[in-house]
Every structure is written in structure tokens, then in C-alpha cells.
């Protein structure tokens, strides 16, 4: 490294010979240059030298730290430091300096260019390696749209085919006919597209025609199977719903009377009761869809007999926070909403001062590993979230 350093004396001699001055003069110049530079830095905090760069005095603010040995907090005092930023021209000159220096020993100026070229090639190689993954992804994207068109053609065919097998299984033929085609049409593009896509990227690399035909056949098969599955699922889902509907119609009236009673027992205000009852009466007179909604809910309606407390809503409180406080988890907030449905229209906008009943939840209700309680919680949450949007 000794060779790689230009010392003070060398610099002095070089300067003297280049500028045509005495060495003593060069020495005087250089030392005063340094002196003045420091002085100027102290005074102005910044010195700019054309053809070289800028020296700046930068202050570092005091900061807090922890002593490594004792673990005590201590403050590191602020200080100043010199920052040198080279002029842009100088910076560029220097960027490839070591390369130039290494080559200067052997072949002066031709090699640096070659070396640069080599570096560029290496970088390109590495970038190519790194970039391979994204590139391959781009290719299949271009080919996807073609295959999607194929899918659409395929999708049209199975529609008339699918209702046949289902009709055989139907115990209630009237009701399934309506939703069957409707439900099947909606999910088709989504569900079919997903299983087929992952196979695509591999396929485009095999351009042979017979293989493609084979794939189309497989695609159509997959489509048909998916459709069948969807229809089956839809059918069973609907049947379940229908049975629950039928059950609920039978149970409706007794449940309602139950609902009103606890409300009266619990320390209620009058308007709340009126609202609750009016809501229920409304549902009966309105259209079928509303009826269905209430009928789904009513069989599982929960009666909150035991109350922990009744807490008035204050400004900074939320149902979720109350749930966290009383039940240990925010997840149970829908129960709070459910217990206070008659007072709360929108769980996000509860008027301050509204007394909130905090019901005592059974261990069963709190246990989300039990499926029924999980489902009721889910249902209540959906209700509450729907109420948020009102």
C-alpha cells in the first residue's frame, strides 16, 4: 500500500515542477491551503473548491443510548464531522479508478475498456439468471387469453347436460330447477379458471398439435366435473335451507313471544321495546326475502337471561373493547350487539349514554371449537356487520 500513497513531500515536489514554482513556495501554498480550509470550515461550515469538491461541517445531534457494559441509559453527546462530497466530474473519474490502476501496470488504456465489457457481460449473465423467473411468467400470460376463449366454448356445452343427472336425484324437483342454472352460471368462470391455470405454464412449451387436443379434452372433462360438483353442492345447500325454512316457520311464533319477554325483564326503556316489536312486525308484512332472513335467524335466537352488568356507552368505548374487557376477547362483540339489538341500530354509531347490556355467556358460547357456537357467532357477526352498513 506504500506505493499507493502520494505523500506530502511527493505532492509538494510534483506541484512545484508542474506549476513552475519553488518547492518552498509550493509548500507554503499547500500548508496555508490546509490551514485556511480548516479555518473556513470552522467559520462558514462549508468550503467549495472548484475542480475537487465540497467540504462540509455536519453536526450530529446528541442521542440516547444504552451502555453496553452496565446497561444504563446514557446520552451520546452531539458532535461535528467533516463530510466531503466530490464534484460530479471527479466522482465519475474515480468510479472505475481501481480497475484502471490495475490495468495500468499491464496494458495502459485498452484493457480498462475490455474489463468493463467483461463486467457488463457478467452482470448481464447474473441478471439473466435472476430475471429468468419473471420472464417465463410473462410468456404464459400471453397465451392464456387464447385458452380462455376455448374454455368459454366448452362451458356452453355442459349446461344442457348437467341438469339431467340432478333431476334424477331430486326429491323436490320444483325448487331446484330455479337456482340450479343460476348458481352454476355465476361461479363457473371463477372456479374453472383456477384449477386450469396452474397447468397452463407448462403446456405452452409443447407446441405439438395432438397433445393440445388431448389437453382440450381434459379441460372439458375438468369443466364438466366442476360443474357437476357445483350443481350438487348448490342442490344440497338449497335443500338444507329449505328444510331449515320449513322448520323455522313452525317455530317462529313461540320464539317471538320468548324474545319480547326477556326484554321486558331486563331494565329496559320503553322506546327500545317499541322499536324491537315494530322491527319484528315489519318483517312479517314485507316481501319474501325479508321473511327468509328472519326465518333463518329466529330458530337460533339466543335468550340472554343472565346479565353481568348494564353499562352506559361512553364516548371512547366500543363494543369490541367491552367484549375484550368482559369476555377476554374482542371476537365476542357480536353477542353484545345481539343482546342490545333493540337499542343499537348501527354498532358503529351508538349514541353516548345508551345502556349496553352485557350478558353472561355460557362456556359453550365462548368455546369456538364447538361448531354450533362458532356458527352462531359467525352469523351474529354477519348480522352486526350488515347493520353497520345501514
Amino acid at each position, binding site marked *: 500500500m506504500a506505493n*499507493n*500513497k*502520494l*505523500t*506530502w513531500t511527493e*505532492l509538494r515536489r*510534483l*506541484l512545484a515542477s*508542474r*506549476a513552475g*514554482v519553488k518547492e518552498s*513556495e*509550493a509548500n507554503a*501554498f*499547500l*500548508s*496555508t*491551503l*490546509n*490551514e*485556511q*480550509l*480548516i*479555518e*473556513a*470550515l*470552522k*467559520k*462558514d461550515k*462549508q*468550503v*467549495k*473548491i472548484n*475542480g*475537487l469538491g465540497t*467540504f462540509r*461541517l455536519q453536526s450530529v445531534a446528541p442521542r440516547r443510548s444504552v451502555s453496553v457494559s452496565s446497561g444504563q441509559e446514557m446520552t451520546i453527546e452531539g*458532535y*461535528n*464531522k*467533516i463530510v*466531503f462530497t466530490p464534484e460530479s466530474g*471527479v*466522482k465519475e*473519474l*474515480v*468510479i*472505475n*479508478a*481501481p480497475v*484502471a*490502476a*490495475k490495468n*495500468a501496470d499491464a496494458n495502459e488504456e485498452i484493457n480498462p475498456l475490455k474489463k468493463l465489457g467483461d*463486467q457488463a457481460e457478467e*452482470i448481464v449473465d*447474473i*441478471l439473466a439468471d*435472476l430475471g429468468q423467473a*419473471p420472464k417465463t411468467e410473462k410468456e404464459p400470460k400471453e397465451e392464456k387469453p387464447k385458452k380462455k376463449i376455448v374454455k368459454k366454448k366448452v362451458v356452453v356445452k355442459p349446461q344442457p347436460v348437467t341438469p339431467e343427472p340432478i333431476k334424477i336425484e331430486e326429491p323436490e324437483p320444483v325448487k331446484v330447477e330455479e337456482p340450479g342454472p343460476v348458481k352454476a352460471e355465476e361461479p363457473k368462470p371463477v372456479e374453472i379458471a383456477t384449477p386450469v391455470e396452474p397447468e397452463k405454464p407448462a403446456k405452452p412449451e409443447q407446441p405439438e398439435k395432438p397433445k393440445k387436443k388431448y389437453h382440450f379434452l381434459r379441460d372439458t372433462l375438468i369443466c364438466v366435473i366442476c360443474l357437476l360438483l357445483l350443481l350438487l353442492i348448490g342442490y344440497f345447500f338449497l335443500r338444507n335451507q329449505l328444510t331449515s325454512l320449513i322448520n323455522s316457520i313452525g317455530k317462529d311464533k313461540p320464539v317471538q313471544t320468548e324474545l319480547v319477554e326477556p326484554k321486558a325483564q331486563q331494565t329496559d326503556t320503553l322506546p327500545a321495546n317499541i322499536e324491537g316489536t315494530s322491527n319484528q312486525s315489519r318483517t312479517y308484512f314485507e316481501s319474501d326475502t325479508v321473511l327468509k332472513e328472519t326465518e333463518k335467524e329466529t330458530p337460533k335466537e339466543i335468550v340472554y337471561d343472565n346479565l353481568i352488568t348494564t353499562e352506559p356507552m361512553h364516548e371512547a368505548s366500543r363494543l369490541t373493547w367491552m367484549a375484550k374487557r368482559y369476555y377476554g376477547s374482542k371476537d365476542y362483540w357480536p353477542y353484545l350487539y345481539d343482546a342490545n339489538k333493540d337499542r343499537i341500530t348501527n354498532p358503529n354509531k351508538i349514541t353516548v349514554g345508551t345502556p349496553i347490556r352485557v350478558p353472561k355467556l355460557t362456556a359453550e358460547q365462548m368455546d369456538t371449537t364447538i361448531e354450533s357456537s362458532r356458527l352462531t357467532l359467525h352469523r351474529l357477526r354477519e348480522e352486526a356487520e350488515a347493520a353497520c352498513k345501514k
Partner: protein
Amino acid sequence: MLTKDLISLIAEKTGLSKKKVEQLLTTNNAILRENLMAGKAIQMQGLGTFEIKERKERTIVHPRTGERTLVPSKSQLVFRPVTNLKEELKKI
């Protein structure tokens, strides 16, 4: 402070003409640049050293796209002040 001011200050102190100082300064800078280009470090007595530091190549990851790119190695001009000066300036 700009170069002009520095030149006039030096001229005042050394008794040389401003022109001469300017010429000296430019040749000095030229020498520095040439030597730096040749990969040499330069020691300025009482001030510090100018040297070239090599920054190794590294891969960077784009935070949003997760894309990886290679930043090639490069050299940087670095100024390291003499410890005396460093300590002196700390306390200002």
C-alpha cells in the same frame, strides 16, 4: 465559502499573487485527480487523506415488487480527516 474567497485568503497569507494562487490550486487539483484516478491515496498533512474505497457489489430487493437486482461494485472517493482535526472540529 467559495473558491474565490479561499484564493484571496491564501494570497493574503502567503504573499503570493491571486493569479499565482489560483494556478497553484488548479494544478494541485489536477494532480490530486490524476493520482486518484490511478488508484493512489493522497495524504494532505494536517488535513487528511483522500482515498478510493471500493464498494462491493450487492443485490438489492425492490420493496414493493420483490424484484432482485445486482448493484455492481464501484469505487468511491472518500475523505478521511486527520484525527487531530476530527477531534478539534467535534467540539465546535
